[in-house]
């Protein structure tokens, strides 16, 4: 199998999954007790004429499947309908907030990769007491929910020491990053612990491999062996886990944005759920799911690039 066919197959599978997932998301919101009308009317009670008008405006008088496909068609063009609460296009609401969430997730990814791999390497290459301490720290990181980390960070670094701003997104790129530092740490800590664990296990296993013994027998410097042989080979599981974690961050950002009062997709989603603003819920969930699935696909492609044995160019 060659690359184009391989890619085409993966993209087709991705499209199929997204289609079913979008149907699920769209359909679920129609199973609400009272149906979509209870959303639209809220607590008001309308006259039959008003109800009919609303039904027509939102195409509720058409069959479900027709409505679904017209919604999907519009969504593919970037039109997710109108928010009932904000009286704005959902796509406009999302696009301004996408940057905040995107930056937050990217920032957290950076922290996870750097700190996770560094801690994992530290544990794997310096066995003994260092390893024990690092492992214990990892377990605590792993067990601490982002919202608890967030609260601790706010109390210690924002309120106590005053090093960081407490809330808000900031203006300008540098200031934004500064404002996003605590949220990004809160978001990434658990995944740092996880990635460190995987890195340690994977590097430890690779260090004991026969081909590393060959490299040693050839008198190559230990640092060269670690760089050229151990890290490259150990990076396969590390890349997978990083990908899965980044996908998880997309969901985790919902919680962290809420603590730090960041106006991102997550806080938009939570508000929309509380206000029963279903067009926004559908839109945001679809975007989150799409991002999640795409990240997973990219991870799969990375595999094939790192490990020649999995490359689609090979007749395996």
């Amino acid at each position, binding site marked *: 199998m060659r690359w184009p066919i391989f890619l085409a197959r993966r993209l087709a599978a991705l499209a199929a999954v997204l289609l079913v997932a979008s149907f699920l998301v769209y359909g679920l919101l129609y199973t609400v007790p009272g149906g979509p009308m209870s959303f639209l009317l809220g607590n008001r009670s309308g006259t039959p004429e008003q109800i009919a008008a609303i039904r027509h405006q939102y195409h509720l008088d058409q069959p479900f499947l027709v409505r679904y496909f017209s919604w999907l068609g519009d969504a593919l063009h970037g039109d997710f309908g109108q928010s009932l609460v904000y009286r704005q296009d959902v796509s406009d609401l999302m696009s301004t907030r996408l940057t905040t969430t995107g930056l937050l997730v990217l920032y957290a990814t950076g922290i996870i990769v750097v700190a996770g791999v560094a801690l994992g390497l530290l544990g794997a290459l310096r066995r003994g007491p260092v390893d024990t301490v690092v492992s214990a720290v990892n377990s605590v990181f792993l067990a601490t929910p982002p919202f608890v980390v967030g609260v601790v960070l706010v109390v210690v670094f924002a309120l106590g020491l005053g090093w960081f701003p407490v809330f808000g997104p900031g203006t300008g790129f540098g200031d934004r990053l500064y404002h996003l530092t605590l949220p990004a740490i809160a978001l990434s800590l658990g995944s740092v612990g996880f990635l460190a664990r995987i890195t340690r296990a994977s590097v430890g296993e690779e260090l004991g491999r026969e081909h590393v013994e060959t490299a040693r*027998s050839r008198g190559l410097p230990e640092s060269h062996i670690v760089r050229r042989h151990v890290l490259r080979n150990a990076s396969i599981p590390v890349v997978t886990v990083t990908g899965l974690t980044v996908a998880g961050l997309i969901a985790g950002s919902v919680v962290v944005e809420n603590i730090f009062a960041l106006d991102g997709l997550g806080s938009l989603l939570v508000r929309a759920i509380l206000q029963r603003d279903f067009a926004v819920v559908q839109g945001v969930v679809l975007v989150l799911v799409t991002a999640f699935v795409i990240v997973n696909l990219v991870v799969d492609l990375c595999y094939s690039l790192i490990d020649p044995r999995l490359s689609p160019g090979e007749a395996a």
Partner: protein
Amino acid sequence: MSEDLLVLDRLRLEVPAGRRQWRTLVDDVSLTVAPGEAVGLVGESGSGKSMTARSVLRLTPPGARLGGRISFDDTSVLELGTRELRALRARRIAMIFQEPRAHINPVRSIGDFLTEAQITNLSASPKQAHAKAVRLLADVGITDGERRMRQHPHELSGGLLQRVMIASVLAAEPDLVLADEPTTALDVTTQSEVMAVLDELRRDRGMAMLLITHDIGLAAATCDRIGVMYAGRIVEVQSAEALTESPRHPYSRGLLSSRPSLDRVVHPLPVVPGRAVAAFEAEEGCAFAPRCAVSTPECSAVRPPLRAVDGAHVACIRAEEP
């Protein structure tokens, strides 16, 4: 000053086994290899032959303890610092491993494998290293070297990979090659080809070789002298012809007679009865005594030392008997 390239003197290797316990894998091994000479080290699995070879490069399991003396070209290997040890491994002694598929990094190309050490250790330019690698591949019988250089280990057969491994060893132009069962993992048909390539190229370049094998016939065909190991000790050393003609130790006789021969059909094939033991499992006295057909009560009392008998060195109290 010694005329030998490699001198092992009462070498002992122990590995940790739990709390303050040690397991002896190699015990009191003395052996020499002269420049350009091929010496075979023969024994069953667990006899310590492979660990003896690894000890020469100090490629021992983590936490292992080496005793005795290893002298290479009059320098003491066990006293070398990290830097000198790396230099020794890089330029003077090279090792060929049993399982080329496991011992060559699967995610790097053949070209990477062949040029890496040249570039890092010998400061060759990538271009020089590449050209030399292709030449060496031709030497070991791989004609389409340019294409092979771009391939990855999983695209080559075991026999080809072992040729690649041999080429990589030749690239360093070492004085001594340690070959640890270089053909055991290969198909029978490719075994002799690979061994012939290794033997010929080694002779051409005047490299000495320590060949580790369980196949006493293979050792006899390629080596000048042969040492037989049992339970972490050397039980007999002789020239290859003398050993095959008149083995002195009962264990050597057992190894020789348990090989199927093409000229004679023997039914059933004689075997050495019992199970081979490792050094740490051996009891008092001669470690081979429990399996020996000619053992006497005296054999189990005192461990027989290696002593000269008619030009051979044998560790058996009944070595003089025909």
